[in-house]
């Protein structure tokens, strides 16, 4: 009892109760810090803050990023928002990855009505719905594409690729999707966007991701093999990448295009023989450094500071979130919400992701940033961008090589 009370007392004392309104602009960043996306996202955001402060800060003030962990849980995420808003008194928020945690923050975000530049949370079914329509959700700037944006951009991308490369012909698409929220929303979007007006024949089957204790794909791969797709697409996690390929090889399943859409890839995937010419959906790859100076600048600075590669594009989104927010504050001259929202609406930010980010309405909210993902391909151990063509770093290799 005594011990518990002592702990409670320490906890209460440890929370500084005074407000600090001096020469800094405080930004709160919330990620799942035990996850690589959150770890690197927060690191990249710190890098951006450092760069901005080195070049004189924003309107004469230094930026200060205060990081909090949401542990991937809604209740912890809500506590993180409250802490940043009331204890640290931050003036804007960035961050976010898992939709299930993001949706826990929304009531608190709405209560404080400070600008949020969100770096993750793709689920339109819960996050966008919970945000609700304009003007109630105007404070929220969503950088990452919604699930339906992604689906639409893939459909667009494949149309464009087939037009440009007549040798590539896709009629039948099979989607193997992990049975959780991520896979299910991918399946819904794929059915909706590829299945429309019967241009493509679509089939799909769920599997249990290795991330959640699965790892046996035999049933879904056999269903795919029977379907004989031109494009085989899987929506799962990095833990599924190599086992799926190995098990595909074991049953001699050789689609012409083998495409994966995990949020990240396992370490050293490119050095695996099986990775050859596997395609992927994503937003960024280090190969873009050759064609995109912003990408190279970010990459070099990140590697120099942290001595590791950014493993996923979530690091870049967090970096962009800080830069976009800083530009907005510069333009508005204040962090006051109405003015800052207005300033951010004018955002035209050349992202290291290889596109210019602006905010446009999506299905429900008013401020959606990126709507397109990219189609890439593993070539000789590197992720090369195939589409959009303006960011392309290589031409597609087709078909997917059959197993020897």
């Amino acid at each position, binding site marked *: 009892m005594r011990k518990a009370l002592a702990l409670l007392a320490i906890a209460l004392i440890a929370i500084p109760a005074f407000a600090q309104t001096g020469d800094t602009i405080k930004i709160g960043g919330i990620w799942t810090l*035990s*996850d*690589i996306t959150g*770890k690197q996202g927060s690191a990249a955001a710190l890098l951006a803050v450092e760069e901005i402060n080195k070049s004189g800060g924003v309107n004469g003030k230094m930026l200060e990023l205060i990081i909090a962990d949401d542990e991937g849980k809604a209740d912890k995420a809500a506590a993180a928002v409250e802490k940043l808003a009331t204890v640290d008194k931050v003036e804007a928020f960035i961050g976010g990855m898992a939709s299930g945690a993001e949706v826990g923050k929304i009531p608190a975000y709405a209560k404080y009505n400070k600008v949020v530049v969100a770096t993750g949370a793709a689920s339109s079914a819960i996050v966008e719905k919970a945000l609700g329509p304009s003007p109630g959700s105007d404070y929220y700037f969503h950088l990452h594409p919604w699930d339906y944006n992604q689906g639409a951009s893939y459909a667009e991308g494949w149309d464009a690729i087939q037009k440009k490369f007549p040798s590539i012909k896709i009629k039948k698409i099979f989607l193997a999707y992990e*049975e959780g929220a991520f896979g299910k929303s991918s399946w819904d979007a794929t059915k909706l966007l590829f299945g429309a007006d019967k241009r493509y024949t679509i089939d799909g*089957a*769920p599997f*249990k991701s*290795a*991330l*959640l*204790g699965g*790892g*046996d794909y*035999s*049933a*879904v791969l*056999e*269903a795919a093999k029977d379907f004989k797709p031109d494009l085989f697409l899987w929506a799962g*996690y*990095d*833990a*599924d*990448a*190599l*086992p799926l390929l*190995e*098990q595909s*090889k*074991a*049953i*001699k399943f050789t689609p012409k295009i083998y495409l994966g859409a995990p949020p*990240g890839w*396992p*370490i*050293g*995937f490119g050095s*695996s*023989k*099986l990775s050859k010419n596997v395609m992927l959906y994503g937003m960024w790859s280090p190969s873009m450094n050759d064609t995109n100076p912003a990408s190279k600048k970010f990459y070099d600075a990140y590697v120099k500071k942290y001595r590791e590669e950014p*493993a996923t594009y979530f690091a870049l989104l967090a970096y962009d979130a800080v830069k976009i927010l800083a530009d907005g504050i510069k333009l508005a001259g204040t962090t006051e919400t109405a003015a800052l929202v207005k300033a951010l609406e004018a955002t035209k930010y050349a992202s290291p992701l290889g596109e210019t980010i602006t905010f446009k309405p999506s299905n429900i909210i008013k401020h959606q940033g990126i709507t397109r993902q990219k189609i890439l391909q593993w070539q000789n151990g590197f992720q090369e961008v195939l589409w959009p063509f303006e960011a392309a770093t290589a031409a597609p290799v087709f078909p997917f090589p059959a*197993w020897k």
Partner: protein
Amino acid sequence: MALKRRATILAALSAAATILILLWKPSVINNGLQQAGLYAAIAIPMGLVLGIVHIVNLAHGEFMMVAAYATYFACRATGMDPLLAVLPAAAVTAAFGWVVFQLTIKRALKAPELNQLILTFGIAIALTQAVNILFTSQTFKLQLDYVSASIDIGEDTFPVWSYVFVAFAILYAVGLKLFLTRTTIGKAALAVGQNPKGAAIVGIDVNRVYGLVFALALALVGAMGALFLTKQSIFPSVGSPYTMKSFCLVAVAGIGNIPGILGASLLLGISEQVLRGFRDTRAWADIVFFVLIIAVILGRSIKWRKS
């Protein structure tokens, strides 16, 4: 008599079902068997610990995860094949387990059962998170050609690599059976498992036996960690689903019934694959595991109550 007749009918029915499935979709049996092997080989060490030390080890899968990470880095540093690392991994994990046992579990053996449960829960969190800090949440995977091994029969191609799990499961079950019935230390372990107080009275050092059995179980888990690495990706939380699956399998088999784990795994592995084989039942494959667990346990309790 009635019991025997019922067993015969059951055996005949399951044989008939097997043949039907074989004709309809031979891959279901092939995959189900291999999956069952993986389940069983991971669950058997937990059954051993539960049967003799009477601890539900909630860090079971986490120990396998640690073994797999150790194997991964050893293999990457030396270029060794993880199959060669099976024995070293077993030894290292056993040593690690023995240390963990001496430092923590031994001190909680006299406490109520639930304390041991939560203790191992704490160990599981600490292990997972320590690995997360060291190696991040990213996944690692060795790429080995032989895991894609398969056999062609007519039109069909059957993957066969995972039969290595089946082999290990059988090896574990038979080996443990022999160990527990033929060796002095094994007999002592069995005696301790059945009646710790009685064993102590006849002069068996109960805590030492517990420590040895725990280390032995972890050796088996460690070997599975190396094997698991051949086929699957590893990441900090990779072990935890296997803890729950193993716990369930041990319960279906009945505590102390190690060969029963093979049967339970077979039942669950094949039923899962059968459900996954149909389009309409695919999504429900996960539920079969839990429905069967409840059915078996309830069925057994009713039988007990009758007799």
